[in-house]
């Protein structure tokens, strides 16, 4: 009976797969962190309403956007 050849991976491919998995996981963690900080910034702005509170909202939104970009890059680019 012939034994079918099992797929083999070289070291570089293993590193690439592990890197991709870790990149997706860390990006997901970053996105969750961005959402938490964004929510907490809302609470903080409510506690103390300064003149330029919209700046905090813009930066928090940018952080969430960066998190989304990181996940997309982890899936597509890496």
């Amino acid at each position: 009976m012939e034994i079918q050849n099992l797929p083999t991976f070289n070291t570089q491919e293993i590193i690439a797969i592990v890197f991709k998995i870790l990149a997706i996981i860390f990006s997901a963690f970053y996105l969750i962190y961005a959402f938490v900080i964004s929510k907490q910034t809302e609470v903080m702005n409510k506690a103390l309403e300064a003149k330029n509170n919209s700046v905090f909202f813009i930066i928090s939104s940018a952080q969430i956007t960066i998190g989304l970009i990181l996940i997309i890059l982890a899936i597509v680019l890496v």
Partner: protein
Amino acid sequence: MENNNNQSHQLLHSYCFRPIVRFETQGVNEQVILILRAHPITQLQWVINTFIIIILLVVLNYIFPSFFSLRQIIYINIFGVAFILSYIWFNFLSWFFNVGIITSERIIDVDFHNVIYKEVTATKLDKVEDVTSKTGGYFQSFFDYGNVFIQTAGTEANIEFMNVPKPSDVSRVIHDLIGG
């Protein structure tokens, strides 16, 4: 010394006299007299940490090509920059929103521990028994910052403003408000 009626934002908004702000539990006729934050020099540690992380990222870029492909290196750099910016933002929020507020009616301490946990301590001015300001050490004397302890009557919570600028002026403002 600030004019009694004019606004004054000093030391990168860590000592704000009569600022145009509102806070959550502010009463209708309640006026904000003083907003206090930690002296900017006390934030030096995380600023230095930021520069160290940036230098580390640059140095690692010389090591990465031995182990990772170009796409992976690009991703690591983007993630590294995002991490650094988040670190700066986290520490800035922690500094900016940890405030001491002195109003025409109350003294309020707003603390956000690690950004997530909120603690608000407030006491009315007529409950204030004693105000102590402490400045110790070379750095605190040179940059004129220290701690202000506000002791209140009975079972009311005591309030502490840590590492605030001009602790003597803060103490004077409170004494002026309570008529002491």
